[in-house]
């Protein structure tokens, strides 16, 4: 009786393992460039500011193997990326997707540069306008003073 149970369990285990998504039976040839391309977009989770493609860590190399296996199993690059995002969240993506609150990250620098140029232009316009508009009034020189200047120039000091 217990033998039957063991056999049933073994059969179930076989079915279970066959149902795993990473089944290498239908392995397709994998383009290493695609593996690299997916890796560059994923954060190496144990590093600081390194992608899975660039990191020499063991974790990153295991993740590259997982990328390769999922591609070999017939997944598209987008599906492989979704697999990682579903487990790690958008945090795993080195570039945040351009939507929702994330748009701030993409738009704020552009807005800041535009605002900076606008402010600089406004200031330059104001400064040049002031110089043009304000005339220096002619200095009043009385007769005695001009006579003195003339004398001192002629004395040729």
């Amino acid at each position, binding site marked *: 009786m217990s033998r039957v149970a063991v056999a049933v369990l073994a059969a179930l285990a076989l079915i279970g393992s066959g149902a795993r998504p990473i089944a290498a039976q239908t392995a397709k040839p994998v383009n290493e460039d695609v593996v690299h391309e997916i890796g560059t977009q994923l954060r190496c989770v*144990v590093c600081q500011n390194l992608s899975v493609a660039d990191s020499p860590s063991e974790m990153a190399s295991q993740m590259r193997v997982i990328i390769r296996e999922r591609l070999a199993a017939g997944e598209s690059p987008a599906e492989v990326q979704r697999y990682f995002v579903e*487990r790690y*969240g958008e945090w795993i993506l080195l570039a945040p997707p351009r939507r929702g609150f994330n748009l701030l990250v993409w738009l704020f620098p552009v807005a800041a540069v535009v605002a900076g140029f606008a402010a600089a232009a406004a200031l330059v316009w104001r400064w040049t306008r002031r110089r043009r508009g304000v005339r220096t009034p002619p200095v009043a020189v009385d007769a005695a003073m001009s006579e003195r200047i003339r004398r001192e120039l002629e004395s040729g000091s």
Partner: protein
Amino acid sequence: MKRLWRWLIPLAAVPVLVLLAYGFRMSPRDIPSPLLGRPAPAFALATLEGAPWSLEAHRGKVVVLNFWASWCYPACYEEAPVLERNWRGYRERGVVVVGVDIQDKRDAALKFVGDFGLTFPVAQDLKGTVSVDYGVYGVPETFFVDRQGRIRVKHVGAVTDDVFRTTVDRLLAEATAP
């Protein structure tokens, strides 16, 4: 007009300061797991003694799934006695503690288990597939799986007696309710 401009420039700094205040209050280490409330990914590994261990075989129990490594000092060294103590305390009540050793050498793992006298099952995730399935980005990380097989709590850092007991008691209490 001129007075308005004088106020506008310092006012422009306010949203930036608000954003910085928000950003600096958040810990960059607290990364919310998208797995909370979702079914715990199934896995089957061999323990250090060579026995098969699968999550499916423990459905219906509260599973405390602990990712660790022998090089993870001090946090993994702090929590190892806590896990062992609570495994002994709770194992009769339908709680399973399982350790998954990642990015590690077998000898180092065996020494760690021996040094702390760990009696709960410990398996090595040699290919890293289980770690990635659970979105593990460091050690230690501990997942509390309820009796329905859903991930309910993810704890980053060393597990304390308090964290273990409050979480497991809560999951046990709700599981007995029909």
